[in-house]
């Protein structure tokens, strides 16, 4: 019995060792480049296509400039404290600079202030956070992206048409800003917003949200969604009812672009996640070398419709390899 228990523990330890070594080898694949400098990149999560593009951009920059880049992130954007822990754990390895996309901007402030105090340059991407001493913020203005989306949708519809807004998880500043921008643009263009509901950036939830909305308002003509996954979910609900509704997503993921080509989504407002990652690492390197970095860098947006979807898709396929 005793030996059995030892065996068991042996097995448990062996499992974790294997896991750890597997993790280590993964680590080497993760860290691209091979130079002396280390840049840590902590994202909101690594488990969605959008963040995979950011990761790809960051690594590409590392490769080009010969820097070690470690990209990490929690399982989900809602794992806020886990992200804070990851930032601390990265900082305890004394990287040359740290690039962070904060899930809840306020929560990362104390740890990042500490980083600044110990002279590690801090660069924010995607979502800004308010604290003293950060090097720069690289990102799209989510409000502007939303506005562009609203304008695009309005251009496809007639004045007075009914439109729907699908929000991300309430309290997520990025998706909230997009919806604000879109709402403003749509109202300005004279559209009637009949419903505004959260679907937590989740495709399935968006589908049921849309189904419920259509139950009441069969004559909805347009949808703006705060991300592409939700736009695709809404699209399914619309197709099931055989309605003609223009749907605009945000992010420009591969699946969304394909859908545009297949005549599904009407368009998407692409932020440039790849650019964010790339510019994040590039500017981190500048900061390490003591060069001056602008304190606000726009990563730009792309408006993708049927006209330019083909070339966009090829680019996405290239970077996700």
């Amino acid at each position, binding site marked *: *019995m*005793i030996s*059995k*228990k030892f065996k*068991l*523990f042996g*097995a*448990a*330890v062996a*499992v*974790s*060792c294997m*896991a*750890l*070594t*597997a*993790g*280590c080898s*993964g*680590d080497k694949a*993760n*860290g691209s480049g091979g130079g002396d400098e280390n840049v840590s990149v902590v994202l909101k*999560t*690594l*488990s969605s296509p959008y963040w995979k593009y950011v990761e790809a951009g960051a690594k590409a920059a590392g490769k080009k400039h010969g820097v070690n880049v*470690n990209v*990490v*992130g*929690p*399982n989900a954007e*809602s*794992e*806020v*404290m*886990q992200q*804070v*822990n*990851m930032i*601390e*754990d*990265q900082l*305890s*390895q004394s990287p040359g600079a740290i690039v962070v996309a904060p899930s*809840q901007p*306020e*929560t*990362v*402030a*104390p*740890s990042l202030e500490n980083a600044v105090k110990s002279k590690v340059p801090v660069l924010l991407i995607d979502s800004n956070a308010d604290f003293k001493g950060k090097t720069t913020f690289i990102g799209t203005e989510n409000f502007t992206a939303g506005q562009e989306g609203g304008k695009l949708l309005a251009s496809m519809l007639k004045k007075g048409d009914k439109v729907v807004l699908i929000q991300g*998880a*309430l*309290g997520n500043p990025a998706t909230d800003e997009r919806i604000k921008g879109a709402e403003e643009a749509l109202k300005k263009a004279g559209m009637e917003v009949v419903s505004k509901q959260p679907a937590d950036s989740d495709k399935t939830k968006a589908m049921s949200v849309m189904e419920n909305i259509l139950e009441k308002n069969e004559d909805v003509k347009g949808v703006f969604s705060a991300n592409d996954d939700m736009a695709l979910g809404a699209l399914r609900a619309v197709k099931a009812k055989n309605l003609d509704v223009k749907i605009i997503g945000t992010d420009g993921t591969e699946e969304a672009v394909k859908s545009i080509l297949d005549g599904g989504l009407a368009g998407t407002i692409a932020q440039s996640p790849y650019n964010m990652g790339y510019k994040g690492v590039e500017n981190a390197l500048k900061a390490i070398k003591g060069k001056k970095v602008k304190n606000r860098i726009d990563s730009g947006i792309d408006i993708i419709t049927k006209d330019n979807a083909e070339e966009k898709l090829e680019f996405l396929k290239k970077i996700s390899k």
Partner: protein
Amino acid sequence: MSEIVVQKENGTVKKNLTIKNILSKFAPLIGLVLLVVVLTVLSDRFLTVNNVMNIARQSSINSLLAIGMLLPILTAGIDLSVGSVLAISVMLMGVTTVNMGSNPFIGILVCLGVGSGFGWFNGILLTKLRLPHPFISTLGTMNIARGIALIITAAAPIAGFPYMIQFMGREFVGPIPVSFILVIAVYVIFHIFLTRTQTGRYIYAIGGNPEAARLSGINVDRVLIIVYTISGLMAGLAGLVMVGRVNSAFPLAGLSYELDAIAAVIIGGASFLGGVGTVWGTLIGALIIAVLRNGLNLLNVSADFQMTIIGAVIIAAVYVDVLRQRKNKKK
């Protein structure tokens, strides 16, 4: 003749029992030590003062939730609401101190009071409304509390807490985080509570056999209400520490924290069937989770992979428990 044989055997049985007792008692600790050794070998960054203090700090929130969770689990129950109760506690503390500008002490009282209040509510649902299992009542409370937390500020986070409130989550005494000192103090108090007070012992009695406890004159309902109230109080306290760490309260705070707390309690050797489990086992369980996460972060293991490993550890730990139970039953 046969009497003598029996005597001898009793002696050997006893000795044998003690070796085994020690092994099964310290199984989680052995696991933790092995884990530390492995990680020290794999990463030179792991066993540094700085990183150890990181672990101490990172484990504190889950340690506080886990010790609260230990009580319901000891009574063969569960408290699924702790993560959400943490969120509502910190949001209301934010509203009173940041938005309304009240005295920070009042804010702390609100935080702990709201936590205890929701815990008490769980206890009432279970004992007075006689909902069949705390899984159901606390699942309900979990959603209610999270919903209210989101409603209060229309999902916006609250930042900029006064120093007094941040103190526990943020400050250090020498190199040691105040939050970890708090954890140790709370654990000592819980140890005394569970081993040396009537109510503490009754918690074990109710978990072991509720009917026997009732027929022994124990006021089962009262003890259960205390148990869930304390669990809620600990959620509030964990929230206070969290606010100090990140200087903000947000409605999605503590999302799915109940699962880590349950995992810590179970890895620490407590039985889901109630009546079995210790304070120090729970601390070790919480540390095992924190050390694993920290170590895997240092080794840049992806979060998805971390989940898989922690899942495997939970199963392994419970399997040890099953072996122990099986051995007991054979007797």
